[in-house]
């Protein structure tokens, strides 16, 4: 079985993400499955960043602490990252360029910069050379990498130089170093697979769902959604606009949605905070909208480039007044794709805001997936067709119905006029202040929450059904929960996973049922207060779950989580 962890460490500006992602993709094209995560600091140059790739010949769902191969592109990486080297693991660095001495036998010297300058004329291509070295050490060959570099590196000249740089690294490794590392990974042929971040997947979901307008204000770790959609807009008939701030971003999107197109916005917690008043406006006006919150550690600016799951209760309760909403917290790229499609459908069908709750781990990590079927996604809408609209004897945008869902039309769709107002209003959308109308309309809106609740089905149960230990989580912990449960089970203490993608309306009955038979319930969250655990307490009969929490900015790693789970912790 192949299960190899490769870490590239260096400073901002050294192109870790660029070469790391290419390397990951080369492995995927070569038949393997990959998960790659980034750990960066909030700066443009310098600092200590890493890009870590785990390569397997089977599904890979989470990251481990241990590293087999370290590529240290700066001194700090050698200082910081060596501790994670597994027995038998090795590190590569350019001793001359980094001005490091020492005779640690685990550290192999490779003249990356010299080769970079020789092949491309630029020192910075040392990173590209290093990928060649890695491929050489693994005996993977450079075929896939060369093609990726040739296609992805701008001008033909630039590309050619970099292809040579890859080869130079590879040849060096084969010649001088290969004997030092005994984990060959030969390229195989396998099914065609995608390597993408969950943010990419969200974009694909949006496009597949027919999103036509996206406005956002840049904010890590959500910015890549805006970037992706801006770059593809022309092809997919989607307009993006970088707004002046998040309030504008969501209000542009609201306007577009009221105008009749599917629309979305994306941000992180701080930007979401600025959108809260408008969330409430979506509630009263019943304009559908998808909002992505890529969480990062707070409060406030917090740790802009790190990960956390601390916006759950905030997002569920955000907004003055009472109105239904959907909150979906996908666990990986595939769930992100599907949850985004579902978010558009739920938003449209129930005329509510739907929040996709991501985080930095999901946003910046690369997942291996079977290709998505973008043409085959379900489509649900509450928008009237033109004939339906024309057939109505009397069009009332906010007609009171049993389901709470009213017939939606857009301005200019037919001869019927559409009025939307942020006040309490009557069925025609005109301001109303009398108690009876108020109660009727508020009840009508809240009734939609019931329909929505019936649709909150995405709760995964993974692992031995009879395991007495249930690990509960939401969002990005999916993979690590599954791997840790596997480790526990393998160690003779069977554990299963109950993972919520759909978190609000809280799927109480489903969770209750999933927890049946479990003696020990452990809620695992990337936050400090156990927010999901709070929901479990409030909405199920399980009142005192054990909480395993982490709020240091990093995702859980498999070994660490398994170790913490194995320990019998004092309940808090």
């Amino acid at each position: 079985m192949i299960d190899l962890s490769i870490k590239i460490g260096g400073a901002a500006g050294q192109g870790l993400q660029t070469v790391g992602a290419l390397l990951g993709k080369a492995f995927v094209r070569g038949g393997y499955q990959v998960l790659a995560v980034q750990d960066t600091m909030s700066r443009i140059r310098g600092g200590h960043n890493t890009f870590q790739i785990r390569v397997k010949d089977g599904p890979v769902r989470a990251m481990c602490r241990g590293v087999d191969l370290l590529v240290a592109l700066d001194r700090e990486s050698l200082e910081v990252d060596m501790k994670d080297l597994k027995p038998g693991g090795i590190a590569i660095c350019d001793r001359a360029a980094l001005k490091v001495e020492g005779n640690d036998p685990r550290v192999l010297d490779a003249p990356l910069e010299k080769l970079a300058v020789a092949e491309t004329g630029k020192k910075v291509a040392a990173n590209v050379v290093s990928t060649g070295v890695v491929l050489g050490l693994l005996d993977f060959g450079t075929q896939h990498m060369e093609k990726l570099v040739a296609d992805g590196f701008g001008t033909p000249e630039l590309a050619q130089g970099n292809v040579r740089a890859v080869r130079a690294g590879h040849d060096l490794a084969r010649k001088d170093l290969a004997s030092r590392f005994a984990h060959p990974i030969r390229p195989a042929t396998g099914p065609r697979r995608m390597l993408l971040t969950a943010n990419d997947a969200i974009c694909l979901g949006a496009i597949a769902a027919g999103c036509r307008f996206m406005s956002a204000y840049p904010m890590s770790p959500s910015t890549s959604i805006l970037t992706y959609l801006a770059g593809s807009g022309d092809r997919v008939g989607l307009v993006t606009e970088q707004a002046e701030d998040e309030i504008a971003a969501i209000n542009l999107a609201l306007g577009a949605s009221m105008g009749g197109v599917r629309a979305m916005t994306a941000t992180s917690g701080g930007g979401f905070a600025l959108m809260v008043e408008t969330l409430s406006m979506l509630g009263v006006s019943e304009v559908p909208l998808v909002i992505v919150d890529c969480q990062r550690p707070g409060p406030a600016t917090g740790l802009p480039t790190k990960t956390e799951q601390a916006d759950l209760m905030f997002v569920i309760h955000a907004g003055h007044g009472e109105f239904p909403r959907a909150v979906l917290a996908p666990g990986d790229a595939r769930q992100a794709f599907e949850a985004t499609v579902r978010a558009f459908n739920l938003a449209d069908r129930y005329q509510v805001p739907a929040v996709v709750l991501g985080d930095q781990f999901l946003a910046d990590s690369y997942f291996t997936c079977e290709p998505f079927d973008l043409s085959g996604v379900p489509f649900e809408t509450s928008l009237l067709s033109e004939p339906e609209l024309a057939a109505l004897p009397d069009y009332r945008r906010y007609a009171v119905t049993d389901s709470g869902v009213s017939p939606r039309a857009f301005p200019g769709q037919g001869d019927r006029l559409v009025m939307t107002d942020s006040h309490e209003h009557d069925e025609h959308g005109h301001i109303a202040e009398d108690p009876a109308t108020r109660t009727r309309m508020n009840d009508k809106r809240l009734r939609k929450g019931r329909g929505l609740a019936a649709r909150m089905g995405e709760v995964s149960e993974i692992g031995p059904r009879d395991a007495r230990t249930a690990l509960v989580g939401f969002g990005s912990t999916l993979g690590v929960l599954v791997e840790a449960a596997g480790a526990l089970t393998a160690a003779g203490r069977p554990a299963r996973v109950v993972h919520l993608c759909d978190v609000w309306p809280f799927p109480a009955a489903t969770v209750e049922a999933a927890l049946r038979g479990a003696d020990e319930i452990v809620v695992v969250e990337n936050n400090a207060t156990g927010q999901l655990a709070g929901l479990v307490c409030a909405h199920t009969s399980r009142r005192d779950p054990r909480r395993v929490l982490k709020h240091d900015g990093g995702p859980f790693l498999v070994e660490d989580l398994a170790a913490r789970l194995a320990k019998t912790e004092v309940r808090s």
Partner: protein
Amino acid sequence: MSGDGIGIASHTSWCPGCGNFGILRAEKAALDGLGLKARDVLLVSGIGQAAKTPHYVAANGLCGLHGRALANATGAKLANHALTVLVHTGDGDCLAEGGNHFLHAVRRNVDLTCIIHMNQVYGLTQGQAAPTSDPGFVTRTQPHGVISARANALTLALAASGTFVARGFTGNEEHLSGLIRKAIEHRGFSVIEVLQPCVSMNHVNTFAWYKERVYDVTAAPGTDPADRSAAFAKALEWGDRIPIGVLYREERPCFEDLVPVLRGGPLVRQPALQPEVLEALVDELC
């Protein structure tokens, strides 16, 4: 609805004598003059007395949050640029809560018409100073009188590269209706600041106060509506004489013209994507 023009309400919740009635009538005249159908018109507003206007016009309406009208209008226009979109916004709505959107809407130059109901006070919330209040204006929240300089929508619009910058007065409805018409016809973002006396909350800047000060700038000799600096100098005029009319006008491609996707027609009418297009996106990630 199109035959007799666009209907306006006979009952409103405005105070008798409010300047807003003049705006309502002038707008109806402008829309009628252009022969626009109600179904193709969208009025967008925020919150305030001004912002109630869409409720009194038989057209489509989006009355959003306080201050956010321009962002909503921009989104709605980009979704469906076949619509004629007008924004009704109070001076507080537009320049206090919504000040940032105003700046950036002007820069963006989407084809919207922004009508600022300039009563130099917060009407709906009962008489606090607006950013447009004159220094010294005494209210219960500004008991020493306003300290900050008067926000000037016209100088700001000029500074933010506005392409159509005008001022009207509810005391001259015909002139105002002509301005609104020109603004709608202008391809790009047009700003009309309308002097709109608030009879209930502003006892300084009254109808008479404005009446005796306004003059039509187009009558002034040597005014070139294409000279931004000259327009700025005019826009600074505020005292014994207050210019009304079009202060500045420039032809520049509007935002919609420059977004390739929109050349295929209004977004809301564009066809579903072909499977090949979608498949290609997946391919790129494999």
